[in-house]
């Protein structure tokens, strides 16, 4: 913005302000109506949707699927879009950080004098694309199920391990045959062809990367789970 543009804006603004109405009572009236609506909506949501408690936090039971609050879905879903393990830091930290820096510094790189959205095609398009992308990722997160069933046909000796996988919430982040979410974790359908049984156990116990540790599972269940997964090649 050139100095004369700034000058022009200030003059124009001063003029518009002179022709405006006083903050009190005109703007205060609108703000108050809006405040009433906000409180009414919050109370209505509280009455209708309630604040029910889930089961108590239990490090030894891993049957619960980790889900963030809905407005973090778009961040969570980025992990499903970007799957290769070496790129995970880009999805978890890289992209959100870059977006935040871009957002924070917006007035310093978009310095043109134009303010009407239809005359700022780049800014307006970027804004709309961002909104659509966030809405789409939020939608994916909202509809992403939390399956607790594995429909795979396995021989009898792996049946117990299959139940552990289904009950421990693995499918929230891993795809297994026809079930489970494809990401953020790698697909498990042919896991045994990629890593040996010992590595599977180590992963379950340590929880590499963003994966939670499942070391609180009873050792016997971990053994059953490892038996089952290491049979999948």
């Amino acid at each position: 913005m050139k100095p004369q543009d700034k000058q022009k804006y200030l003059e124009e603004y001063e003029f518009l302000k002179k022709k405006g109405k006083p903050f009190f009572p005109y703007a205060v009236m609108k703000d108050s109506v809006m405040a009433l609506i906000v409180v009414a909506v919050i109370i209505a949501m509280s009455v209708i949707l309630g604040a029910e408690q889930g089961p108590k936090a239990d490090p030894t039971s891993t049957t619960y699927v980790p889900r963030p609050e809905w407005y973090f879905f778009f961040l969570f879903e980025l992990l499903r879009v970007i799957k290769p393990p070496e790129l995970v830091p880009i999805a978890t930290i890289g992209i959100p950080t870059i977006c935040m820096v871009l957002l924070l510094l917006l007035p310093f790189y978009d310095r043109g004098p134009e303010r009407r959205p239809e005359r700022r095609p780049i800014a307006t398009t970027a804004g709309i694309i961002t909104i659509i992308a966030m809405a789409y990722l939020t939608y994916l997160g909202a509809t992403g199920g939390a399956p607790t069933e594995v429909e795979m046909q396995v021989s009898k000796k792996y049946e117990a391990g299959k139940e552990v996988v289904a009950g421990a919430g693995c499918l929230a982040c891993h795809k297994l045959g026809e079930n489970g979410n494809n990401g953020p974790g790698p697909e498990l359908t042919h896991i045994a062809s990629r890593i040996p049984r010992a590595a599977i156990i180590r992963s379950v116990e340590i929880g590499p990367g963003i994966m939670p540790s499942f070391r609180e599972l009873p050792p016997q269940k971990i053994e059953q789970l490892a038996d089952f997964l290491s049979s999948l090649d």
Partner: protein
Amino acid sequence: MPSFPKPKIPDAVVPPPLRKPGKPGSGGTPKGQAPADLKETPERKSAGDKMLEVGKEAPIDALGWVDQRLAASGFLTGMLFRKVPKGTNWFYTLGSATLFAFIVQATTGVFLAMFYTPSATQAYSSIAHINNEVPLGQLVHGMHKWGSSVMVILIFLHMGRTFFFGAYKYPRELNWVIGVVLLILTMTMAFTGYLLPFDQRSFWASIVGININGTGPVVGPYLSDFLRAGPELGATTLSRFYAIHMLLVPGAIIALIGAHMYLVVKLGTTAPPWVKAERPKVAAPVSQLDAGANGNGRVNGNRVNGAPVDGEGNGGSAL
């Protein structure tokens, strides 16, 4: 250090209190000549009347007393009666609506804090107590829970309005920066508050959230260690999240909201970008904002105020 003699403050320097001038006939000391029919006034004055008078004046005197010491009345009337530009519409209520949602969060949060216990063994049962036994407990808990969603939605709408109206441009760049920091702090509130009910959902989501922070380059592992406050998510994590959620971030948010609103009052809210000023023929008055920097004196703007002149080919100019 030279010592100064203690000066006696002359009466003329003391600002006059905000005293209402006494109405003729209602007592007090009438200025100028009293009408003939008021001659009897002094005789009617009993002790009770005097007390009544003092009582009537008391609130005004008290206001005057406070104002002499705060000198705030000028600022307050300036803020209340400042003009908002032409074309201001309902989109401009989103900021104050966000503030109001924050006030709801703060208020309900205080009441929840009266009954909540931030310990790994008792957190869950204290929430159950709030939900089931405290009068209106579930309502307040629900308002806090859903109020966070409402606040996040309002922030994004407010930010969208600011973005599409180009309201972050000169001279309001800094206020945009403060706003983005407020957005980040609100997300921090959402993240730390999510663990506090300490049910399965919040427990496992927080583990994943902390692990996500841990994947960051360089600082990631330190950040996740700091958040977890130990090898496993547990009692120490809960009290750490509680302190961040209750003390650290709310303090920062309140301070930054103050700065945000100060700048809003100081710089004024924008007009919608398509509202055009009819350009005056004479040079418009230079805004106070820039008067010093440009070295231009202030021109009396009243001339153009009453009879606006049509625009002069400024159609393509920047608003």
